[in-house]
């Protein structure tokens, strides 16, 4: 089992630790509900050092990234961050990721921990004919996410990182006590916030300063999942997979079909956008206290299985039993009455928006 550079801190804080994507990760410290509320109302800090980082540079870097990546980085200013996906040739999602434009020939990719090996193999396997250098930095870099309405103040006042001028989905690189750091106004919680990438020693130093200040609540992966789920953000492995397309996952807006050069997966997405996809990701509200978990069956009126739950919780900011489900498109219209099988019982459920809680980004 791999450990992040903050592992000893989590153990010292008494976190509940659990395996995630090959890492021994903190799930919660004081409790998922308290940590979730801290991010919605104040400031929380997450160790997300398990995330993978890959740098792509070289003469063809931009063209190569645009060939692999569903969004369009061509001609973007340095300092911009893009969300998007790498698609396979069947239009399925290899991974969803952030791409940071560091220079005209220099891009930094942040990928899911569970997909590091697969992604690196995919990137290298598609690089033939491109003049690029691909470096997997996953073992060398740590990452913390500082999230919540007070994140900006905490970064400026506690960590001494000027970030007020950073716009949503932009980043800057700077020095902190002689060490190189990269700071972006991004996150995975639906709140304003920042993600900081640096070497292990620097990440440990930043974490310790935050803990000593008492102004950022340590938050585990437990509330990271409830926070992202309530605002409708997908998690690879739940809402996204090698056999789920961006059209099915309702992420078409991050696939730029008007890019002049071809990119992997384009044809399938184009066809599905025109003809419709067989399945669609929807929100469900369960009319009961029972909770629909990942993998549970979704049924129609005739008790036929027409889909399955991808994520489900008793909402924290939303006091309801809510779920996301990938269902047959014929049953995806808002207001459709469906059923969810929860252990031995079947509960009525209504198709609703997956945005159960409103994001409050600072744009």
């Amino acid at each position, binding site marked *: 089992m791999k450990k992040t550079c903050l592992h000893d801190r989590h153990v010292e804080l008494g976190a*509940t630790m659990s395996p995630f994507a090959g890492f021994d990760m903190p*799930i*919660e410290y004081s*409790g*998922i*509900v308290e940590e979730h509320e801290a991010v919605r109302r104040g400031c929380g800090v997450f160790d997300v050092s398990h995330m993978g980082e890959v740098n792509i540079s070289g003469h063809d870097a931009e063209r190569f990234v645009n060939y692999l990546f569903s969004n369009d980085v061509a001609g973007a200013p340095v300092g911009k961050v893009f969300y998007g996906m790498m698609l396979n040739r069947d239009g399925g999602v290899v991974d969803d990721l952030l791409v940071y434009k560091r220079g005209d020939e220099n891009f930094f990719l942040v990928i899911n921990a569970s997909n590091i090996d697969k992604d690196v193999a995919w990137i290298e396997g598609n690089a033939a004919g491109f003049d690029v250098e691909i470096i997997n930095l996953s073992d060398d870099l740590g990452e913390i996410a500082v999230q919540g309405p007070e994140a900006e103040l905490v970064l400026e006042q506690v960590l001494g990182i000027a970030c007020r001028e950073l716009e949503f989905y932009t980043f800057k690189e700077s020095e902190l006590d002689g060490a190189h750091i990269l700071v972006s106004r991004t996150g995975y919680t639906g709140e304003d916030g920042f993600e900081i990438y640096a070497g292990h020693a620097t990440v440990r130093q930043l974490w310790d300063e935050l803990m000593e200040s008492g102004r950022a609540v340590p938050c585990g992966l*437990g509330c990271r*999942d*409830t926070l992202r789920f309530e605002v409708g953000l997908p998690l690879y492995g739940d809402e996204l997979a090698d056999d789920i397309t961006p059209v099915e996952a309702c992420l078409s807006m991050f696939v730029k079909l008007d890019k002049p050069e071809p990119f992997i997966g384009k044809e399938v997405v184009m066809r599905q956008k025109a003809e419709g996809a067989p399945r669609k990701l929807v929100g469900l509200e369960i009319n009961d*206290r*029972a*909770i629909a*978990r990942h993998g549970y069956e979704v049924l129609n009126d005739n008790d036929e299985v027409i889909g399955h739950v991808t994520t489900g*919780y*008793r909402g*924290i900011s939303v006091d309801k*039993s809510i779920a996301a489900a990938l269902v047959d498109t014929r049953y995806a219209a808002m207001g459709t009455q469906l059923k969810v099988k*929860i*252990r031995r*019982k079947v509960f009525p459920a209504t198709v609703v928006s997956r945005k159960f809680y409103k994001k409050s980004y600072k744009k």
Partner: protein
Amino acid sequence: MYYFTETHEYVNVEGNVGYIGITEYAQNELGNVVYVDMPETGDDVIAGEDFGAVESVKAASDLISPVSGAVIEVNEHLIDNPRLINEDAMKNWIIKVELTNPEELGDLMSKEEYDTKFKI
């Protein structure tokens, strides 16, 4: 008298009646309980088989019955207030059963054995 399972349920036996719940250790591991899936009065439970689930924010945990019997009451306070389990797991039992095979108690752990095995 309390008896315990390896899967962190207890049965508190008074005469022929058993109060089944989850242990303090289990509630602590689970965190905030948000839902308890309970059988209905009149249902049968079988030793070693699941009869419902306790759900925390993060996951559902099956409830495994320590004993066989018929459900004579479910703890209805848990429907609207599942967190009672976090407040006092040993007092807030989940179901009350009439034991059909009290000899099964011999397969369970005593409080001392359980506490030694799962130090809180």
